[in-house]
């Protein structure tokens, strides 16, 4: 299961990602850590990250990697959150790389997997 503290689940089934922000370094990060991974500062605040992003890098995984039992192929990539300028490694709802482009707008969605895990994706 996904460790507690990464994702916030709402009553309507929607989710939000929980990140960290260090005022002294001015940097956001995800998942939230006790120590800012850029500066080592320990003044990390809990922040609910924004949902709007753009596609920054993308591919499709065509064979199940070790330990993964979900569907293949699946979209995989890095999105950049528009507000925080934070880049996040993520599943992508689109599994055909030809349908995606650099800078394409995407939004955070809940992504239930067959094994009962609900993770996040961008679509």
């Amino acid at each position: 299961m996904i460790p507690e503290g990464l994702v916030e689940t709402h009553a309507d089934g929607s989710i939000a990602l929980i990140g960290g922000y260090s005022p002294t370094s001015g940097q956001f990060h995800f998942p939230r850590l006790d120590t800012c991974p850029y500066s080592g500062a320990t003044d990390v605040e809990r922040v609910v990250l924004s949902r709007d992003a753009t596609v920054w890098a993308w591919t499709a995984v065509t064979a199940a990697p070790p330990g993964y039992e979900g569907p293949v192929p699946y979209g995989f990539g890095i999105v950049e959150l528009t507000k925080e300028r934070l880049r996040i490694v993520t599943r992508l709802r689109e599994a055909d790389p030809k349908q995606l482009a650099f800078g394409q707008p995407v939004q955070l969605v809940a992504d239930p997997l067959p094994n009962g895990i609900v993770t996040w994706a961008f679509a």
Partner: protein
Amino acid sequence: MGVRVSVAGVGIHPFGRFDGVTNTDMGVHAVRAALAEAGDPSFQAAFCGTAYGGVASGHKVLGALALTGVPIVDVEAGCASGGAALQLAAGAIRAGQYDCVLVFGVEKMPKGIIRSSFFEPWREETGLAATPAYFALRAQRLLREHGLTKDHLAEVVVKNRKHGVHNPNAMFRKEVTADEVLASRVVCDPLHLWMLCSPNEGAAAVVLRAGGDGVTLASARLRSHLPGSVLGEATPLAGIDDTEIVPPSTLAARDAYEEAGVAPGDIDVVECQDTDAARELLAYHELGLCDPGDQPRLLAERAAAINPSGGLLSKGEPLGASGLGQVVELVHQLRGDAGARQVLGARAGLAHTVGRGANASCVIVTR
């Protein structure tokens, strides 16, 4: 100037798949060959690179040769394990602690996509631990930012596989065409199957000593990623722009050039990390061999001098042994006995590995 460290002997067990042959068997083969070349010296310490070998891998090899008693230290630094072992050995000789040190690496990689304890189970379960997918994202970024194309990736594979034909220790010894590379199945776009190296099995060994008249180990330097570096070899979950963060390969290269007293332009022959074809092209830039986007010129003008062994694309990648395998190739190149793979007049060679951790090592040998 401190103590000069020379390479007294090298040995290698072929890289490939060898059912029924153990890490110990392969290590014994490589160590015996290296010690024989060096005139069977008594060494005072041994460092063994391995990532998946398990507890006391080095002890097992030297135990099988009745050569225990000296300190034996296993070294794990991912793909850079061999380079890390060399740095420790060379440093101990330069410090005057030892006169002769044995360095070797052994590995039997599991088949298929590399499974790594680097990733927590939940990342595996959610499909975020797909190693070739990270390679693909890095490749896509390189193509976009350096103005390169898939054809350049295919060109790297064609070049390295052509070199591999002449390497009896390589796993793949058949030439391929660019059309064949681009026709192999897509693993993670833009990477096709033949653009990815195969994790496999093998061993390599290097005997270092103070002074001597062999090839000089001018530098062996290891670096890790700087904090916040995200989109290079380190794969934490998220990060901001890493454009301004110097990657570990560049850090290691700068240290190595400085220690060896050479510049990138002085390097005659290069063995660099071609885990995937894009990784090799990125290395050209990270190692200071060319400007961003200038990789096609290097491919055209210096093809024979880059990964003359066939690279990991021909040899396969046994993590603990791969970096030392590169050094074995460079030593043959500098001795002038590399046969059909010989880069004429090679006097300075650079070996580069980079991998999970993130770790990067650069080794420079000269004569």
